[in-house]
Structure formats: C-alpha cells, structure tokens
C-alpha cells in the first residue's frame, strides 16, 4: 500500500509559495540574478539563483535557510490540515549545507550564532508547536530525496502515522567559492542537458511535504495529492565529487523494482540536471542505458535552469513540482536548452514553453557529492 502525499510547500528564488513557484516555472521564469550579498570582486562568477529577501542590501543575515524551511513546512502542514497532537508524527530535514552560511557569517563577520542552530530541530518544534522528533541529515545534493525514502520506510514499518519530509539550503560562500575555483568556464546560467552547458550555479530554496499513512489520512478525511510509489537509493563508492553511471543506474533500478514499474511506464522525469559536463553526460547515459536511445519517450524537465542548484532541497523541489505537474497536466520547460547532448540526442527535453501532458508516473532524480543517489517515483492521484 502506497503512502500518500497530503500536503506540500515550497519557497525558491522564483516564488514564496508552491503555486507561485509552479506558475513561474510554467512561464519559464528564472531566479537567476547578480550576486546579492557576496563580495563580487572575490569571485569569478557573478550570478546565482538567490532568494532576494535580505533586509540589508549588500549585507547578509544569518538563519535564512531555517526561515524558508519553516515556511515550506508551514505551507505543507496547512495544506495537509495536520496539526500538533494529531497522530505519531516525525520531521525529516534533508540539507546539503545546514546553517553553515550562518556559521560563516559568525566566523568571518562576528554575527551571532548558537551551536544548536546548525541543525533545524529547535526552530521547527517552535514554529509548528509539535513536540516531535526532528532529524536533520546533511546528505549533499540528494538529501531531501533520501529523506523521502527514510520517511516511506518509517511509515511502512508502522513507526509513525505521518512524516513531514523537507529540504532546504542557502548558499555558502565556501561552497560557492570552491565550485567557482574548480570551473574555468564561469557560467552565467544553468543549462541542464544542453550540449554547450558551462557548469553549475547554486540556488536557494526549501520544499516540504507531508507523507502519510493512507489509513491515518482517511481518518482525517484527507485525500492524496499523489502517491509515493518508491524511493531507490545507492552509493557509488567511487569518487568524492564525480558521478558514476553504475551507481545512478542502481538507484534508478532500485526505485523501479520497489515501485514494481517498468522504466517505459515513466511519463515525466525531473532530472538532476546540474548543467555540469560530468553530471548531465553521466545522467543521460544512465537514462539511455535503462530506457533506450529516446529514453522510452519520457519527457524530461530540468528545473535547475530556473532555480539554480538548490543543493539538499533540490530533490524535493523536483518532487513537489512533479506532483503539481501531474495534477495540472502541465510540464515546466527547461530554460537555456538549445542543442541536445551528443550522448543522448534523442531525449525529449521539454523546452521553449510548458507542455500540456497527462502524466501518471513521474521520476525525480537527485545525486550528490560522494556518489549518493536517491530516485523517487510518484503516481498521479485520480481526483
């Protein structure tokens, strides 16, 4: 029996709510802008996909990732109608960079920071009023998809009735700078699956959903927005920063096996698509290897062209967007896509404008540093 998604939320550089974000995606709007707070002269790259919410223009404030996380979780709980005291609830947070931006501001600028603010438990318990376990995992760019899988297990094992699954990240100067340091191409935008892509740029955001045991949801007279069919997981055990096709395919195959679906049944794939030479080539080869030259006709959407790489949040940003796409019958386009990859010329990358389509099964890929891979499969809920 599949667990239900009963509430969702998102905050990103293109919008403050899930609906704002989804509508912006479908209009092909990008959150790409000039660096808002980092000292420009210290970097080669001048663009990112930041959330433009700093009160002090030119300066930076601590705690922004926490703020968006709390908002996204609040949206998801409101949509689910789930309140403190209802059922056995836990909260999982997947993040790449925790509140390390606050740590940097503390170390470099002397801004205030408490050791407990590195993780998110205190802030979430306070904002939700829920005295429940909160677990913060730092699992690189696959973090929130891993959380979705752990939540699915916790529900299937009967340990909890509902798990709030979430992801968030703000950009750290250290990660942004080191990615800048290692890429001589100095990209100005993220172009997933485009032949002339120049690399990744970071973005900011948070996403959340309520994953719930269907019996518990029915007791609350709540229906599903979508069903979670599976999350497949793997680790390459290969390289600290480079992806490996074998590991990615293993996570995808794990997801298909757990969901009891054939690759050809997937209608929409939210690719990891970071716009780097290595990721997109490896991911495309993995897709073609499992689904055939044309990817079995699967529609491909690269959200990072509009959000930048939201790191630990990016998996769940893809998940809630995929659910919206299935519900609305509209697939967001991939910006900056002009020419297909040499390795996968036949893939159907949705670009130019949003495409109307009925999708029953969607796949969301998330891969992170160290070769951590988590792939989610979602099923449309019949209204």
């Amino acid at each position, binding site marked *: 029996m599949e667990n239900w998604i009963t509430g969702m939320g998102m905050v990103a550089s293109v919008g403050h709510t899930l609906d704002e974000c989804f509508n912006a995606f479908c209009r092909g709007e990008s959150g790409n802008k000039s660096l808002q707070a980092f000292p420009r002269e210290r970097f080669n790259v001048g663009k990112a996909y930041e959330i433009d919410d700093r009160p002090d223009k030119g300066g930076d404030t601590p705690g922004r990732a926490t703020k968006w996380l709390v908002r996204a979780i609040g949206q998801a709980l409101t949509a689910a109608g789930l309140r403190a005291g209802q059922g056995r609830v836990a909260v999982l947070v997947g993040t790449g960079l925790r509140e390390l931006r606050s740590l940097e501001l503390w170390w470099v600028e002397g801004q205030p920071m408490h050791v407990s603010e590195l993780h998110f438990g205190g802030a979430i318990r306070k904002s939700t009023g829920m005295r429940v376990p909160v*677990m913060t995992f730092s699992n690189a760019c696959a973090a929130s998809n891993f959380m979705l899988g752990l939540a699915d297990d916790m529900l299937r094992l009967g340990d909890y009735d509902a798990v709030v699954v979430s992801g968030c990240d703000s950009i750290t100067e250290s990660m942004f700078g080191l990615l800048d340091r290692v890429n001589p191409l100095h990209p100005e935008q993220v172009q997933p699956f485009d032949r002339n892509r120049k690399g990744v740029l970071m973005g900011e955001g948070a996403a959340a959903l309520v994953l719930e045991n269907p019996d518990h949801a029915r007791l609350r007279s709540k229906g599903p927005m979508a069903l979670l069919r599976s999350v497949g997981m793997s680790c390459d055990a290969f390289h600290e920063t480079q992806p490996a096709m074998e590991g990615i395919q293993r996570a995808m195959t794990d997801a298909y096996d757990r969901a009891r679906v054939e690759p050809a049944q997937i209608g929409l794939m939210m690719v990891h698509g970071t716009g780097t030479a290595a990721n997109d080539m490896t991911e495309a080869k993995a897709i073609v290897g499992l689904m055939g030259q044309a990817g079995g006709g699967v529609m491909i959407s690269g959200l990072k062209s509009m959000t930048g790489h939201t790191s630990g949040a990016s998996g769940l940003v893809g998940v809630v967007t995929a659910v919206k796409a299935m519900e609305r019958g509209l697939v967001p386009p991939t910006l900056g896509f002009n020419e297909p990859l040499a390795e996968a010329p036949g893939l159907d990358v949705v670009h130019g404008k949003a495409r109307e389509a009925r999708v029953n099964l969607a796949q969301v890929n998330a891969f992170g540093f*160290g070769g951590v891979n988590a792939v989610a499969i979602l099923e449309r809920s019949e209204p």
Partner: protein
Amino acid sequence: MKRIPAFVAITGLGLEIPGLESAPAAWQGAGPAPAPAEFNPEPKLGKKGLLYKDRATKLALCAAKAALEDAGLPATPVGQADPERFGVVVSSNFGNLDTVCRVAEIIRGKGVAETSSMDLPNASSNVIATTLSIRFGLKSLNLMICNGATSGTDALYVAANAIRAGRATRMLVVGVETDNAVVAKLLADSGESPGGPRILDGAGAVVLESREAARERGAKPRAFIGDYAHGDSFATGPVPELVQANAGPASAWFTPNRALEPARGRVNEALDGWSAGDGSRLRDVSAQLGECYGALGVLQCIAACSWLAAHPAGYALATSGGVWGDDTFSSLGILARAD
C-alpha cells in the same frame, strides 16, 4: 515509542579515541579520562589517500576499520560482503566546520583564486560518510546525520530501519566529533560549557546486520538493537516507555551528560519519579570522555555491548540529548543476546 523486535544484531565494535587505553569490547563507558595523545592514523590506514582528509574523517576511518575487523568483515572494497546491500550512517556535527570557516575566511580576505580545490569535498558535510563508502566499498544507502546531541542515537535507529525495511542487510554506523579552535570558539560564543575537562575528540563505530545475515556467516551477535523513543524528558517520555516495553527496569541506563542542563535535571526528575531508578544503574560516558555530542549514542552502544557481555541478563538504555541548546532526548534499548 517504536517496537523493534530483536532482529538487528550488533556484530562489530570499533573505537578511535586518542589516549583511551581500552579495547572496545572491554570498554564499559567508565574509567580514567584519555591521556593527552597524538593521533596518527597512518599505522592503521596506511598513507595512501589520507593527505587531504580532515581529522574527523580520519578518526571515523580508524574506528570503522576496527568495527569491520571486529565483525569479521573485510575492511577493504575487495571481497566486501554483499556490498550493494551494505550501507553507512555517520553521525557528526563538528566534522567539517573548520574547513568551512577556513575557506570562507580565505575567500573574504583574498578571493577564490587563493582557495584549494582539494577543499571541495570537505566543504560538503557528508564527506565522512562517503569517504567510508569508498574506502570499504559500501554501496547501499549512505547517510550523514547532523542532528545535534541526539544524532548518534538517531543514527542507530535509522540504520536499524534500513535493515528492518529490507534496504540493506548490513549497516556501518559511526559517531565522530572533533575538537578544534572553531568548535571551541563556537561553544564559547554560544555561552555553552564543554561539560567536562574537554569535549570528545574521537570516534566510535558499530556494525549492524540482520540476525539472519549474522547467522548465515557464523557471526556471533554481541547484542541487539531494541526499541527507540523520543521525547522532552525522561520522567514521562522515552525511559518509562522503554522500561515498559522491555518489561522491567534497565540493567544499565547510559545517561546523557549529567554535567550539563537540561540533561542533568531531566535525569534527576526521572529518578525521583521512577521507583526502580536507583542511581547505581546510571552510567555516564561523558564523565570519562567529556561531552560526546553527536558521537554519544554510538559510544553508548559500544559501552552497552561490553556491559551486557559482563551482565548478560536484561538490557541497557542508551539515551542522548539535552545539552548545548537541545532540549529533547532520544533513547534506544540495547538488548542482550538470548542464547
């Protein structure tokens, strides 16, 4: 409270705490504080591949290697047991804070051209967990939990779940924290006390596997993972629930650091209200090692296995939380093997 049948076995223990004069299987979480000591991982790990690893990663590698060897499993990718079903959970909060601060400082002072690309892996907090996967060839799920004071206990619960849910047959669980100038300043600026003469600089590791997998390869479980609970206090929360679930008071209660609040207060409240709670059952690992933070739960699990080996009836409670601004607690039963 989560009922976990005695299904997940603990089959390997490893410790890397510089200056601690004890083998893991003999360490019950008490004794003299570790003497000041150099940490030199090369005799254990060899030189290869260590050059750009941070201290927390090297501590974790040593403890993990010891745990794998203790479990009778290969400490190398070659010949690893069912590698695609062997996963990793690492618990640490302080692991890469020094790298992040150092790189941010370089960028702010001089710009990105002065940074080293060798710092890129260490800027991602999960570097410890993925380094273990590469070193030992562990290809199933790979997780890094950074959840404050309860992290180590939560890591054991999540690792046990991976086995219960059939994602993995074996899980390597490591708890590691490290002490450096960034950590010391962060605590001081947070207004928090070290909770002992110093804070932990070290790692503990355990190998978990399904009872079936252990039996198939003839490995003898040291103990089993029991129930997990989470709550605001011990008087009404995790401890009474676990005591009830395990039908009687624990043989040993491994408490969080009783030199720090609110941990001390909550433990005392529980002792007042819990009739079976005489103080002789309490074990405080932090009194020996200093505050262990994200490593505590894993270290308690190791100490509990050793304690149960000497006191083979009953079970131990491993509890963490309630320090350095965290006000909740996680608890896990560690059950003696029934043979």
